[in-house]
């Protein structure tokens, strides 16, 4: 039996033609697509104990991206977000960030990681030279330390030292007014708890030198029961208590301290109280806890801020978190900088972003500024107030003074050898 060729086009030729056709038609489409959309990569924490914060970061970003896209995108290019879970692990955050740039073709990075992950992603940004905005890390050194400085990395989050200065001066003023000299502290036993408590106490003592810390408690992070800590503080009989417990740990602590009537016996300063994640969860929120603002739609008390909080709630059926406004700010800044540079190129956006001041619902005076010298956000709303058990939860917030913050921050930088 011999093989015979049928007349007409062979299978091989058909395949070759189809291939050629595919290349001819697909290539311009790919090129056109690349010109049209710009991918922004975003590693964040979408699973595990702090997944709620990561989700609220993603929500806020999507809310703003929709607006930017509706208005024409970044210099005419529609934004496409590529958001991946880092599970809160620094090495995973770094791996995801690298992959987003190298494999997925992301041209910009939004690093929505907690501090541990942020430092890992920072190294990736240093290595790849891609524009990166850190949105959640509050650790001061990330931008304050000149060794960390790279031209392509920015931060749109609060900074620990800013909060400590404002918190310290607020607490000192209350201390002087009410004669609170004996203080106790209670903070989770890890880097954040130790550093934040240390900085708060430093500034409290600076503004009110006769304050004395008579009791310190360092419960474990995620400890389920605080009874022994509560009773220990009651034994010490302080006039005021400072705590930087947060999230579920803070709500547990409040529930447990409440039945010991601890809140009637001393003034309590809990920096992380005024965040909706904690405020809406605690069922019997005591009146009069002093707290720093995290995100609250009534402060700054402007129509813009209230509208932003309500729009977020309407879309996601819950209130934004502190991480939400920080991430929304990153997109707002990107959009403005891109407009100013008339480009979606990372280097040109970075150039335009340095020193850029934009209108913002989260600004102390309606604006926020990306400070040029250390590429970190300043001028955001920062203040302290006291709680009430129902909405608006913190009716009066006393604004922190940015002038004082700048002076003391400069001094702090000198003392750390950063300036």
């Amino acid at each position, binding site marked *: 039996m011999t093989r015979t060729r049928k007349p007409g086009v062979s299978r091989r030729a058909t395949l070759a033609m189809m291939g050629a056709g595919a290349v001819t038609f697909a290539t311009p489409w790919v090129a056109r697509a690349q010109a049209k959309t710009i991918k922004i990569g975003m590693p964040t924490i979408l699973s595990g104990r702090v997944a*709620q914060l990561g989700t609220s970061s993603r929500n806020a970003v999507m809310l703003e991206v929709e607006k930017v896209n509706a208005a024409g995108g970044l210099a005419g290019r529609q934004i496409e977000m590529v958001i991946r879970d880092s599970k809160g692990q620094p090495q995973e955050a770094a791996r995801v960030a690298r992959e987003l740039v190298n494999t997925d073709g992301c041209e910009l990075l939004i690093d929505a990681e907690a501090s541990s992950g942020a430092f890992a992603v920072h190294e990736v940004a240093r290595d790849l030279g891609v524009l990166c905005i850190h949105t959640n890390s509050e650790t001061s050194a990330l931008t304050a330390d000149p060794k960390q400085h790279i031209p392509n990395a920015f931060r749109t989050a609060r900074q620990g030292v800013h909060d400590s200065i404002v918190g310290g001066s607020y607490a000192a003023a209350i201390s002087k007014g009410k004669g609170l000299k004996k203080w106790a502290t209670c903070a989770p036993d890890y880097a954040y708890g130790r550093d934040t408590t240390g900085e708060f106490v430093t500034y409290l003592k600076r503004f009110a030198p006769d304050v004395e810390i008579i009791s310190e408690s360092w419960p474990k992070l995620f400890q389920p029961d605080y*009874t022994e800590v509560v009773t220990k503080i009651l034994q010490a009989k302080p006039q005021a208590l400072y705590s930087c417990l947060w999230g*579920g740990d803070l709500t*547990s602590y409040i*529930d447990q301290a409440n*039945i010991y009537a601890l809140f009637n016996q001393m003034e309590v300063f809990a920096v992380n109280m005024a965040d909706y994640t904690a405020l809406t*969860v605690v069922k*019997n929120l005591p009146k009069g806890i002093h707290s720093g603002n995290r995100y609250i739609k009534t402060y700054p008390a402007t129509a813009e801020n209230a509208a932003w909080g309500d729009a977020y709630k309407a879309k996601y059926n819950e209130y934004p978190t502190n991480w939400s406004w920080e991430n929304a700010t990153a997109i707002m800044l990107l959009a403005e900088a891109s407009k100013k540079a008339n480009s979606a190129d990372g280097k040109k956006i970075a150039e335009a972003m340095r020193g850029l001041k934009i209108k913002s619902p989260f600004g102390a005076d309606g604006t926020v500024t990306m400070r040029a010298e250390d590429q970190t956000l300043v001028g955001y709303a920062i203040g302290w107030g006291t709680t009430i058990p129902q909405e608006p939860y913190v009716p009066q917030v006393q604004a922190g003074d940015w002038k004082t913050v700048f002076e003391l921050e400069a001094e702090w930088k000198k003392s750390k050898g950063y300036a």
Partner: protein
Amino acid sequence: MSCLHAHRMFFVRRLVPVRCNGNHPLDLDALTGCLASSACLVTQTTSGFIIGMLLFLVAVGLTLIFGVLKVVNFSHGAFYMFGAYFAMTAYQYTGSFALAMLCGAAGTALLGLIFERVFMSRVYGADVLMQLLVCYAFVLIFDDVVRMIWGPEFKSMGMPAAFQVVPLFIAGGVVPPYYLLLIGVALVAAVVLGLGLARTKIGKVIRAAAHNPGMVSALGINTGLIYGGVFALGGMLAGLAGALAAPVRSLTPGMGFSVLIESFIVTVIGGMGSILGALIGAILIGMIRSFGSLGFPLFTEGLMYLFMVIVLVSRPTGLFGKEVA
């Protein structure tokens, strides 16, 4: 002076020295001062009982299941977690604290029964590693189930209005009424359990099944039913602990894990399989935490493990454990 910090791991016996940033690991003045004052003594002792009694409810289920089924139930913490979530949901819908407690206990009893009959009964007599893997798989599965039903964020049940009252002052010490109830419920559970096992017919059958299941089965008693019942009882006690803790502790997926670790310490100290051992072990751990936080503020956690190590070295079967024949 350097201080010791123990790693939180199962049955860890290694202590690692670390620097303590200039804080004093010892504050014996505070401890002796407390022991000399009735107010402090009352407050810290009740504080120890509160921590201890909740721990007892979880640990006694663990020890009971081990005693009868000879299985170390590593998924026991999940029942504590489910008890808390069931109670919170029941409380949200009915507003009744009593119903919430009932739902927490009954729901986990049912869950325990199903879990034992469908899954655990298949690995009796299997390799310990196999049992451990099944339990550990369910730790993860149960956590994800909670995440799917109630969401990943933490929740709070809130203190019922009846207990939102001024704490009692006994000899100058502060004692919240809710905690008195909590201690009372746990004590009643301990007494009922102890008497039930010692005096009733069912108790005798359970003890017999623990000792020689083959013989019990040969006498025409349904051992499967006993095993299921004991597992349900253990689950119920953990669920009750979770329900009682729900008004004062935040609820998160995975909340059972740290409670489980402490329960293991309790059973190791008290002796695997001993109810009295679980009670004494739990109260001891409670007191160590309560008074340890005053005298050894940076070593409270380590103190628990240190105590466990001392017991293990001097009495490897635990304080009330029986020698294995």
